[in-house]
């Protein structure tokens, strides 16, 4: 009788990797991932270059009261709100004129979300991870392999850990290789050239992506250990996936809108136009009555009213909008896909938080331009913007989203473990 030797974890990991390498599934998954990631990198890199060229046209000359940011190089990977953030904000006495600068007139862009790295990972890589996990337990049960494996002196913990690690490696290694290769290739362009801090942010972005993918792998194994047949496991997983990735985040925002009363952008701008034209009309009438031709007190009085009312409206709008953002974030976080989008866009500086931070800065800039004008200086100060540091991003919700993703990971893995331990392998 042969002596039973305990099976090493590494043996199982290797078995899983080899099995994957030879499978059709692996071939399809890697083909899809590579194809999509490279296409996405190329297309968004071109898009970035185009926007960079436009920025050169609109960038503020010294003394101009214009706040405009160059496009963020990391928007190649996470476009987020970068297009909104790189509009040019021109300060004038009566407010901020916005030129949706680097916007194209092509309406088809409005129909579907941008196919950036974040989108590919959020939608496609999560699906691929599920495909790696969905048949881990049920398929081996169906084929009888599981029974054979269990007849050796190997603990279920080891089998599960080996499966998880083996699949995780065969999924994440090609993904990392493609991603890093893309990053390096883009970095070759002297016009892009990521700074050290950008590279660090990119590293965090990829790390978040890995955590997100791992989560779906665990989920796949968990459901696989719940079901007797791989086919049912797949059906359940595909539907869970569709709900997490598409239904919850997209419905959540709409739901939040029902609870927070935010006027539409149209309504706000109509009200602003009304205030502004009303005051100018009254100013004209008063000036005519007093035969005042200069820019006297009347003008000042009415401009003050305009500024006061518009500022109040804007502040009110922004307060309500912030509340909407907070609520919709919390609802959407039910889905790890939303947490993933929040974490990655904030880390790369293209998220909602960064956008509102930029707006605060533009408003502060407006005040300083106006006080300069007040003092009779013709030259406006120049606008400088510092993206929030990684530390700030993490403390303002980023860490929560990361922790939330890790929590889902642990939860699914633990549930998978419990389900597997109780699994009837016959």
């Amino acid at each position: 009788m042969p002596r039973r030797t305990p099976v090493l974890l590494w043996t199982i990991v290797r078995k899983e990797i080899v099995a994957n390498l030879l499978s059709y599934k692996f071939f399809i998954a890697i083909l899809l991932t590579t194809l999509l990631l490279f296409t996405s990198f190329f297309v968004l890199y071109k898009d970035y270059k185009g926007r960079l060229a436009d920025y050169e046209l609109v960038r503020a000359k010294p003394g101009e009261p214009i706040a405009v940011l160059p496009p963020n190089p990391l928007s190649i990977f996470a476009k987020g709100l970068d297009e909104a953030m790189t509009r040019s904000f021109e300060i004038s006495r009566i407010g901020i004129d916005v030129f949706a600068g680097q916007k194209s007139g092509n309406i088809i862009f409005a129909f579907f979300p941008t196919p950036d790295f974040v989108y590919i990972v959020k939608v496609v890589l999560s699906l691929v991870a599920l495909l790696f996990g969905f048949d881990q337990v049920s398929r081996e049960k169906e084929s009888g392999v599981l029974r054979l494996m269990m007849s050796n002196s190997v603990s279920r913990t080891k089998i599960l850990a080996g499966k998880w690690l083996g699949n995780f490696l065969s999924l994440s290694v090609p993904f990392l290789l493609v991603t890093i290769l893309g990053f390096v290739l883009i970095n070759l362009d002297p016009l892009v050239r990521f700074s050290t801090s950008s590279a660090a942010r990119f590293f965090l972005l990829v790390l978040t992506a890995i955590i997100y993918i791992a989560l779906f792998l665990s989920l796949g194994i968990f459901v696989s250990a719940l079901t007797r047949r791989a086919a049912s496991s797949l059906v359940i997983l595909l539907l869970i996936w569709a709900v997490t990735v598409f239904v919850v985040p997209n419905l959540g925002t709409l739901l939040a809108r029902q609870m927070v009363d935010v006027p539409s952008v149209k309504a706000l701008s109509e009200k602003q136009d009304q205030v502004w034209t009303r005051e100018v009309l009254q100013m004209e009438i008063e000036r005519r009555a007093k035969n005042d031709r200069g820019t006297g007190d009347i003008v000042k009085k009415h401009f003050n009213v305009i500024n006061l009312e518009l500022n109040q409206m804007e502040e009110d709008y922004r307060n309500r909008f912030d509340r909407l953002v907070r609520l919709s974030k919390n609802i959407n976080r039910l889905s790890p896909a939303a947490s993933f989008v929040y974490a990655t866009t904030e880390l790369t500086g293209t998220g909602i938080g960064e956008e509102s931070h930029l707006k605060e800065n533009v408003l502060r800039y407006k005040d300083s331009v106006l006080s300069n004008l007040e003092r009779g200086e013709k030259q406006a100060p120049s606008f400088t913007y510092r993206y929030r540091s990684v530390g700030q991003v993490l403390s303002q919700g980023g860490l929560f989203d990361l922790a939330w993703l890790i929590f889902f990971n642990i939860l699914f893995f633990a549930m998978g473990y419990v389900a597997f331990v109780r699994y009837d392998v016959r």
Partner: protein
Amino acid sequence: MLGTLIKKEILNNVFSFRFVVIFALLLVVVPVTIFILTNDYVKKVDEYSSRQNGIENYLKNYAHFNRIGPITTPSQPPIPFYSLVRGISSDVNMDKFDDDPLPVMFPLLDLVFIVGILLSLAALIFSYDAVCGEKEDGTLKLMMSNRLARSKIILGKIIGGTLTLLIPFTLSLGLGLFVILLNSRVGWEGTDWVTLALVLFGAVIYILLFLVIGVLISASHHSSSASIMTSLFVWVLLVLVVPNLSPYLAALISPAPSQIKMEREVSRLSDVERDNLGRKLEAERLAELVKKYPVLAERFSEAEAKARVEKDPAFREAYQARTREIQAAWDEANRIQGKKANDLQDEFRRNVGAQTRLSRDLSMISPLVDFTYLATDLTSTGTMNLGHFRRLSDDIWGPAYDQYVRGRIAALQKQNPAVDWWNTPVDVSDMPRFQYKEEALPARVKGTLWPFAILMIMNLIVFSAAYISFVKYDVR
């Protein structure tokens, strides 16, 4: 015989696990989505009417012709179909400082999205093992041992699959429509129901297409686990990638300058360059004029000129000629530069138009896009409605409004020429108000013939391929 096959497929599907799961999902997602969208629509209606009231109040008190242009600018009212289809109606207003960037991060969920993504996925889940699954079970062999044509089997599978998929879809949609009917604030008219029927017809063709794609893939594989991988691969490409990539690819193939680049160029043409040209033309014309009126060669200030014009009739004539020439020079400069700017804008519009058309054509490779276009254009929430709205506001309402303003001003000035009527509040209760009306249904249908046709053609092609592939299939 075909009836038996279809019945077998339906029964087989209805009692399957996937049917139950998909049914449960749709039964929750569809009514909830429609419920939320309907509430949102009602909210939009309320806001729209309060906005209109605000405008009317303003007009009552402060209407004056100099500045009411921006106040009276027409805006798109919410339409009852918003409780099912949103299209590109969500307001991401990039032109204002206080914008609403949320839709950029997470697009809205509506019926088009549910059909486009969830139901196409469900169709593949139903059909990925239609052929190879039965082969694996051995039932295909048994079936073939009867006197059964392969064409009938495959037809039975496709029809049976579509009918089964329509059960959960129709029931959940019916539940959702019930929500709409119960809500007294949503007034659907006869044409709306016809539109809905057309959209649903499109949805059926779309779902059918994915079912046939699933059968084709299933008939080209011998194991269902490989078949599902290929199906998902194709699905991801058609539904999640091609639509999103196509505008970017179109921008690479047919580049168009950005809006800002064009605007900068136009402002340069009509600003610095016009001034230079104007000065040059003025100098040329004045040099010509000096030959005729040598007096003009002298240097004089504006005040001196005024004084001399009073005294010296000859100088007055020369000075008037000079004023005329200067005016003519600047008019010409304005005309030349204006034409240049116009040409540039036209070229820009042509380029953007070409790129938009190319994106549209490229994206139509994806059935999801075809369905999206046909559903949004039928329900007046797509690109066609943007054009329709522009026609209503610029070609119909705009001229009527201009005519009204001109007529009113002329009448008022006749009454009292001393008043600056442009800056005086006037009663404008008789001003023409903007009326939005959806484009007539036949025109909308005509605009969506292409996507319909493409979906049909795709169906035919994929079906023939599936048939051929099944005929050659080794059932053992």
